[in-house]
């Protein structure tokens, strides 16, 4: 009978197809971007965290090693190959505290903790929908969009979790406004910018003030709708950004100060600039501002410098507009704490490699290189 032959033949075909290729951990790749830094530079490493588009599980960490001038892309998986599904989905913020690098992975609902020198994983803290980080006195403070404390299930408030950095456990929580974003800590008080960005038109418009001793919400400061960035400068001034409503109400920058040491923090100035990120260099606040124009269907980017001592706008560019003109979607800015170099990232179309630009203090291009998808946060490591 021929039936067996045919079955045999079929089985052979089947086996021919039986050798599927193995899947490897995607290795980090590297490029020489600059010469090795001088020996007296205390900064040894810069980490750049890439968000990766939501659902793509493409959060990644790039590293610039100043000793060699080599830029490493996608280093986390290479240093931690055994972590299932790698770093995670949508990295948001990164900060170094002590000798550890902390990264919030928003859609993986965790804070990843790594050794800042080796990038080896130490552990994780599970915090749902975590956004930004602040550190104080042996504790990490993590803002989260969803509070576990009280709840209207249809409109959950956000919260701030306190994490003991020695044990990586959550010690206390406090609920704040809607969809809290960045935080800063001044004189034992934590200030957190509430956005309410996911409940238009009922945006939140407050900065919550938390007393860290009691971990209670002291009061809310009304600023503007849809708050986002919140940074403290060396004078104890808070700089807070509003993203507006993307329609009639434009984004802007606010200055909050205590008029005397005992006085409450209050809004003292407003700048009509839709600041999207900022960094300090001495008494300068260097910002990037990007805004979408619905009519022309293009986004426009602006850059500038504000004096933190006088509050005046000192410049409307970073020194060399020709350099920044090539940037499509400026996303993140940082200043090298020793050389004063400006690091600027371009998220381009958000679903392909971004670009990192390194500018000298006068705004001239030193070098640039490709990053992961949506380069979002930069942290510097000292000796």
């Amino acid at each position, binding site marked *: 009978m021929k039936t067996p032959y045919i079955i045999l033949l079929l089985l052979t075909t089947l086996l021919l197809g039986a050798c599927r*290729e193995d899947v490897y*951990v995607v290795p980090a790749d590297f490029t020489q971007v600059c010469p090795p830094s001088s020996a007296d530079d205390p900064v040894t490493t810069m980490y750049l965290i890439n968000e990766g588009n939501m659902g793509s599980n493409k959060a990644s960490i790039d590293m610039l090693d100043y000793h060699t001038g080599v830029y490493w892309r996608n280093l986390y998986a290479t240093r931690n*190959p055994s972590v299932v*599904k790698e770093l995670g989905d949508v990295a948001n913020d990164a900060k170094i505290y002590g000798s550890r690098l902390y990264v919030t992975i928003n859609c993986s609902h965790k804070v990843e903790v790594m050794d800042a020198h080796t990038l080896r994983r130490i552990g994780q803290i599970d915090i749902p929908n975590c956004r930004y980080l602040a550190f104080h006195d042996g504790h990490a403070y993590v803002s989260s969009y969803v509070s576990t404390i009280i709840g209207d299930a249809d409109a*959950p408030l956000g919260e701030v979790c306190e994490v003991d950095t020695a044990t990586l456990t959550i010690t206390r929580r406090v609920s704040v406004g809607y969809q809290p974003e960045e935080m800063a800590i001044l004189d034992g008080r934590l200030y957190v910018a509430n956005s309410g960005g996911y409940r238009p038109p009922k945006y939140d418009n407050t900065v919550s003030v938390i007393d860290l001793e009691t971990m209670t919400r002291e009061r809310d400061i009304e600023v503007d709708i849809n708050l986002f960035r919140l940074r403290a400068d060396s004078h104890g001034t808070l700089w807070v950004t509003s993203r507006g409503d993307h329609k009639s109400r434009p984004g802007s920058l606010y200055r909050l100060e205590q008029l005397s040491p005992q006085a409450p923090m209050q809004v003292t100035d407003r700048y009509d600039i839709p600041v999207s990120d900022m960094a300090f260099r001495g008494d300068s606040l260097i910002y990037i501002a990007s805004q979408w124009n619905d009519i022309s269907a293009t986004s426009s980017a602006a850059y500038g410098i504000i004096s933190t001592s006088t509050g005046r706008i000192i410049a409307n560019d970073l020194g060399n507009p020709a350099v920044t003109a090539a940037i499509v979607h400026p996303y993140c800015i940082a200043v090298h704490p020793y050389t004063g170099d400006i690091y600027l990232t371009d998220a381009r179309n958000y679903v392909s490699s971004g670009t990192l630009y390194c500018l000298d203090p006068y705004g001239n291009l030193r070098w640039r290189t490709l990053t992961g998808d949506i380069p979002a946060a930069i942290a510097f490591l000292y000796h």
Partner: protein
Amino acid sequence: MLRCFDASMFRDVEMSGRRGFGVSRVIFTLVFLMTFFTGPAMGPEVDTLDEVVVQGRRRVPPLTPSMTLSGEALKRFNSNTVADALRYFSGVQIKDYGGVGGVKTVNVRSMGTNHTGVVYDGIELSNAQNGQIDLGQYSLDNIEALSVYNGDRSDLLMPARQFGSAATVYMTSRRPDLDDRNYRVRASVKGGSFGTFNPAISADIRLSQRFTLSASAEWLYATGKYKFRYRRLNQDNTVAYDTTATRHNGDINALRAEVDLNGSIGKNASWHTKVYHYNSERGIPGAVVNNVWFRGERLWDNNTFAQSNVKWQQGRYSAMVNAKYAFYQTHYINKDERVLPVDNLYRQQEVYVSASGQMYLTSWWKVAAAYDFQWNSMTADLYDFCNPWRASNYGAVSTAVNAAGFSARASALINYVYDRQRARDLATDRWAFTPAIYLSYTPQRFKNLTARAFFKQSYRMPTFNDLFYTDIGNASLSPERVSQYNIGLNYESRRHGHLLSGLAFSADAYYNYVKDKIVAYPKGQQFRWTMLNLGKVDIRGLDVSASATLSPTRDMDLTLRATYTYQRAIDITNQSDPYYRDMIPYIPRHSGSAIANISWRDWGLNYSFIYVGERYSQQENIPVNYIGPWYTSDLSLSYDFSLWRIKWRAMLQVNNILDQAYDVIAGYPMPGINFKGGLTLEF
């Protein structure tokens, strides 16, 4: 139209006239098989079933590349849904999010899902909200024939709207099969992996000499749970991680019910009315990402439509009228406590009427015209949603000549669309004009061989989501446009009573150019996106398909089909993009399928194989976006028997026999080896 043959059709014919077999024939069979399998490509099968009617029709020249699966070949298939079966068609890519309830959409020749029309019993399905038809929702249980046409179908007598898509999937539901009986009942129950329980029943009843009624209902329940595995190696081949987990929240509970009335009016006219209802609740398992193993997304679909078709023919005139009303409701919630809660209700309505007429001017020249009107509306409880409606007018004219082996056909479609945003009292309009030309030549001396070429322009209108979705929509979008150029060859022969009773082969090379592609573009802060007419894609491809039917013995048939597709679909939008000239996401350079079907007495064995080559999950063709090739082998065995004057068929399927772990869409793991069994009865 590429016409191939269907094994089942030949079986019926050949039962009577087949001779015995000898040893030499066996050897020939094997040799042939080997040649066939080592050849570069193998083919689909096809059949003479025209979309609308069945037997006895005059052969229409194969003007455009197409493929059909129908009848027994479709039944023997290891497929649950229309989407599963379409994977075996050349040039077709399925986006499959995995599992019983996972969304499955079809993309023909890399032009994008929204360029593929899906026609169910003569009337095109639409989704004004996002333009995508989830073919995972259409069960094969009630489908008689499934075809994919590149360009247009050969008929001229069709609704105007169907001239508009770059490629079209035609699904034809089972027609009453009564012969001289007054009723026929079929019932089946299937079950297996993923906690699947799937009973179905259908009945054809003759109401009178002129009317038949068909009704069918199907229930699909599955827990949707399955094991999946992610395994990664280090560069030194040691295991980095190897994890197996269970897919959760992939359950489905779906009910489908259809009623068809068929009738005739006098000698020259016939009509068909269908009422379709689909109601489901399902979980959306979501992407598998680090630290997330379950999600809280749920979706309820409630789709109902009624459609009618009247056809009339007298002498050289024929005409057709179609009408449809549809109501679609989608309820989406996310109750995962780790994310912000979502609870949205979307409703769509559609009213559609179409009239078309055709006339033979001479015996070799015909002309046709058609006009369609369609009204779509959508409401959603999204913040600041404009609740739009759309009125679309379609007008088409076409002509075809057919003489001395030459066939030519030309058509032109004009579409004018008017959109109104009720909540804002704003209106926009847009229009498209698209011509198409088809040529084919069959030499008198080689009647089995046909050379063909076509040029077609087509478009897709921006959807309600593209235009009006809160914050994202861009009301000033233009239609996305495609130009297709195709040149190809088709060969087919049938020799009843021979060992090689049927052979078909076709090859088509094509060049498609997509411009004004509608893409999501970030607006900057807070992950707000908009839609822009931004992309340009250059697509060059080759589709090859072949099929052969062997009848080595009197009671045995062997059908082999294979397809191979080569595509180079590259993004040529902007030279400064890092992905300039990279392959567009999820398009493999190489893909193919093979099917072998043996029927011996009352037994049937079907083996099917799919290969999808390496591809990239995002625009940039870099290692982090790389997805390796995958291939699956599926087997099914069936046995027919009679008992208590009832015809029975028992069926057993093993899918993904080699237990391959693979993702079609990155982060959406597909099931490993899985089983299904079923019993069908008919009386």
